[in-house]
């Protein structure tokens, strides 16, 4: 009896210690996430940082947290969000982005983004950045994000208005 109780406490404690990570019953989280339209914004010469945007789609029945990103093109990579506080734009680091079960998380200008700080060089359109995403269970996903110019993309205008 005492032993059973010990075992129960032991299990609960371990559970608490490892929080929500590494649930072996599930396939790894990276496999459940699909990344579409990733890109890095081209930066003006000498800029100190730029950002990467993409859409993350969760194909599992559980919410998945993106907890970390790394890139070969920046010394520091952080997860950031913006809040629009009555017109005052505040950018802050956040510990994770959550992708809802069977849903999407959109990283886009003015909102959540992967911030590439102290880039190793000025990133120009046509180049590609490798970004490694790490999820809460420790699984990784590596993506190739092309560098795109804000101007050639038509800024945030999605009207397909092209001059050629």
């Amino acid at each position: 009896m005492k032993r059973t109780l010990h075992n129960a406490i032991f299990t609960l404690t371990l559970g608490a210690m490892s929080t929500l990570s590494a649930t072996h019953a599930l396939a790894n989280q990276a496999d459940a996430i699909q990344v579409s339209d990733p890109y890095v914004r081209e930066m003006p010469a000498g800029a100190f940082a730029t950002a990467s945007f993409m859409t993350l789609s969760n194909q599992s029945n559980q919410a998945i947290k993106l907890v970390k990103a790394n890139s070969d093109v920046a010394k520091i990579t952080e997860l950031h969000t913006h809040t629009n506080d009555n017109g005052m734009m505040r950018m802050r680091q956040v510990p994770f982005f959550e992708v809802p079960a069977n849903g999407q998380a959109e990283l886009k200008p003015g909102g959540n983004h992967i911030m590439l700080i102290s880039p190793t060089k000025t990133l120009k359109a046509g180049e590609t950045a490798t970004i490694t995403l790490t999820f809460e269970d420790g699984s990784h996903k590596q993506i190739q994000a092309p560098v795109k110019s804000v101007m050639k993309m038509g800024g945030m205008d999605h009207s397909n208005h092209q001059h050629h």
Partner: protein
Amino acid sequence: MNTSQKTVKLGAIAIGILLLLFLLFSFLTEPSTNSPPPPKAISNEKPAGGNFTLTSVNGKQSLTDFKGKLVLLYFGYTYCPDICPTDLGNLAMAYRRLNEQEKSQVQILFVTVDPARDTATRMAEYTRYFDANMVGLTGSEQEIASVAKQYGVVYMKAPTPSNATTENKNYTVDHSAFTYIIDKTGVLQTQIPHAMSPAQIQQQIKTYLTP
């Protein structure tokens, strides 16, 4: 189960309990510390606007130098990773879609709210990227503060996170992100919010260009 296994188990339990107590403690003590600075109010009244004199790479420039042109005035900083390039990119796109005659009547001005890092040279380099005949302006902390006040622009250095270690250069600046539309006589007509599309900006330009 032998003794050593039991010891390991008890050890794990002890660590677990300590961890839970620690978590509980940190939850309980958290709220009082680390509260953000109170936000400065952004006024909902239309700002007065008016003339100002700042410094471009070509020397002193005043708003009155652009009399006869519709001026699109934006405040930001060159280290801005997302908000400024989005808005300046959209302004530039709108400008580049105008015909030559319209272009000759429109001027985009970019004023830094981070004069400590944004020199006139840096502003010129940065604005050149957008390829829209933009003029970058800087000044002393005081000059910038006074122009900002005229236009109801609010800005402050963000509390810096971990990455500010190396040089103290990695700070970001929270700032309001409106574009001010000033008519050909120098009168502030309206302010448009962050992330207006090039098409929307173009519409605004057309509206205020026609007398």
